[in-house]
């Protein structure tokens, strides 16, 4: 896997729906277009929700993985 470099990290560990999505939407707005947000979550609902969120907002979900029992997402602000 390519190394992805994030511009900001958001840790949503321990939070349940809808917090990871709400926090992500807030955080992505603080980035410049083209910058990457790394979001970490423990909610098993986060992977499908982040895919839906990304489709709805147009921000690009570059990668969605599972590491050490956590879900890690890289999202690029697209607009």
């Amino acid at each position, binding site marked *: 896997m390519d190394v992805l470099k994030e511009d900001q990290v958001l840790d949503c560990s321990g939070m349940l729906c809808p917090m990871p999505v709400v926090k*992500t939407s807030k955080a992505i707005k603080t980035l410049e277009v083209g910058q990457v947000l790394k979001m970490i979550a423990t909610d098993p609902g986060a992977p499908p929700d982040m895919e839906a*969120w990304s489709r*709805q907002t147009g921000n690009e979900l570059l990668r969605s993985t599972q590491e050490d029992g956590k879900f890690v997402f890289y999202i690029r602000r697209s607009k």
Partner: protein
Amino acid sequence: MSKSDPNAPKRLALIASKGTLDWAYPPFILATAAGAMGWEVGVFFTFYGLTLLKPKLTAAVTPVGNPAMPMKMPFGPEGFQNINWPIPQLIMANVPGFNALATTLMKQTFENKGVASIEELRQMAIDLDVRMIGCQMTMDVFGFKREDFIKECEIGGAATFLEYAADADVQLFI
């Protein structure tokens, strides 16, 4: 295509008709999630749901009316927390303060599991510019005044909501 403006963002129109703690969650969760996805959101708070617009939230839960509600303890070892206590309806209905106890336990369980409180979700909805409409007719019926509700809400009637909902992509009654 019923949308008058095809370039407008997606829109969610909700009716929040219930004021108990368990039923307070769905409208605020859906409203904040939709807001986070860039949708326009409007919620019509009517009947008991109108109390969710009071500055101080007092939403409680009543196990008597909800026989499917799991009765669990939010403390102790995991095995203990997973026990579903078989409390007879007769006891739940007659022990004074049982609703208050169940409400405290549910709030604690939610907090332990990482669910935001209704207060937090409502504030997030406000921050996401969710349009909140309090029902004028309900105010008249229950004797509420405008100043009984948070300043961020507006007051309107069925026509106000329907006009908003007519242009919505998703409409739900909760």
